[in-house]
């Protein structure tokens, strides 16, 4: 029996050690905006409980013996011990990847509710995807190849990607500011409670649009640029943006792809 316990312990302890995460906390002087740049590891965003920004990471740099007592020279000073630099200026908290090794690690960033986040992931060296969970506040994300997955959030979102897919599950749509999701090669998949009110502006060139949300084409918009020759006729299809309403219309949601499909799901 004892032997079994030792064997289990021998296997379990290294696993626990490997999964060790370190924490860094920062209380912003002004609760306004967070800018995340050059942090090209695996990022997940969430709201924190209090007024502090918390960064959790498994960052663990393997240094050669010769570098004992020396620090890796990066673009900025690593003042978090997590390979990142945190600074605050003019009411904007900046979280910056300090070294290129950040690409190999995971970062979980907890942001106080109500702070806006601008995440710049627009780099060919970005290694992973982005996930956002239970986040309230304005969120702006820019990526090149990375996909963005958002759950249990309300926006407003401004998300731009070139080849990434966008998956957004709204718990309810923010009615104060519009949201915009845009991708060139990826798909857009949004899920929304059927009772939400929204105005969709949907635009795709090579993609198809599927929906089981009860959206209706907004006739008003379509009749706007009818010319003299179309007098007395119904609009069948108009160029450019196509507008649809959900439950009589609400805040605007812009969905734009070039080659990807768009999926509108009911929650």
């Amino acid at each position, binding site marked *: 029996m004892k032997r079994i316990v030792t064997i289990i312990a021998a296997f379990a302890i290294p696993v626990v050690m490997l999964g060790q995460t370190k924490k860094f906390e920062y209380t912003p002087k002004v609760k306004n905006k967070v800018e995340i740049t050059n942090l*090209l590891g695996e990022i997940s965003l969430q709201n924190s409980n209090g007024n502090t920004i918390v960064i959790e990471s498994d960052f663990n740099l393997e*240094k050669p013996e010769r570098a004992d007592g020396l*620090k890796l*020279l990066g673009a900025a000073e690593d003042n978090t011990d997590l390979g990142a630099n945190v600074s605050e200026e003019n009411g904007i908290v900046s979280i910056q990847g300090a070294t*290129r090794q950040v690409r190999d690690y995971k970062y979980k960033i907890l942001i106080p509710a109500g702070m806006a986040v601008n995440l710049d992931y627009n780099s060919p060296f970005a290694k992973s995807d982005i996930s956002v969970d239970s986040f309230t506040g304005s969120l702006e994300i820019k990526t090149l190849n990375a996909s963005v997955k958002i759950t249990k959030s309300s926006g407003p979102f401004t998300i731009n990607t070139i080849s990434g897919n966008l998956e957004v599950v709204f718990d309810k749509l923010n009615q104060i500011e519009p949201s915009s999701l845009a991708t060139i090669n990826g798909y857009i998949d949004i899920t929304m409670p059927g009772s939400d009110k929204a105005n969709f502006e949907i635009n795709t060139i090579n993609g198809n649009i599927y929906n089981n949300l009860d959206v209706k084409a907004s006739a008003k918009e379509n009749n706007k640029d009818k010319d003299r020759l179309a007098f007395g006729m119904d609009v069948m299809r108009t160029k450019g943006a196509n507008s649809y309403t959900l439950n009589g219309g609400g805040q605007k949601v812009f969905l734009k792809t070039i080659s990807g499909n768009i999926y509108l799901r009911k929650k």
Partner: protein
Amino acid sequence: MKNYILAAILMVATLGTAFSQKVITKKVDATGKKMEMKFDFADSIRIEAWNKNTVELEVSVNIDNNRFNEYYKLNENSFSGDIDLVEKIDFEAIKKIKGTGNNCNFDKMIRYKLKVPANLEFSLKTISGQVEVIGTLGKMSVNSISGFIDYTIPASMKTRINLSTITGDVYSNLKFDNKPEKEAQWVGTKRNLILNGGTQPIKLETISGNIYLRKSKLLN
């Protein structure tokens, strides 16, 4: 019995002298001179500053278990008035004896130890050498392909360090005047670091080695 043991000891001793590592020492006056070094196949190069006006050099050579030590040469050219040291190993001759064709894969261990005047201006080129420079204050240029460069810098030195590495990393415990960079460098590192607002140019280049910049513990 005793005789046998004695004979055995003698034999081992003679073998030892026949195949022992080659050590070359040199002393050169460096007053008003620059130094240029090309130690391509070095394993380690250690350059230390001292307060004399001479360069003192010690090379220990071991090529293929000391069998081919005689094919190592350290050429000194001084026609320019400066000190010019070039390592030469006659690989063709060794290959002929070993009959290995184009394969010149054999063990070697070549170590350089130099003591130089603190203000000496010098340049060093190596392929495989791991370079350690301690406390020099002069203009310097070090270029290595696969070895690291470790520079111990006098804390008060006013210098501009131009460094680059492709796949290596840079480690340091010095406080440079530079402001944080806006863009991170994702491939390789190329930096122009300024220490104490200074201008003495230092150039450190390596392809796959790390670069270490450390504060000297000595006061000067």
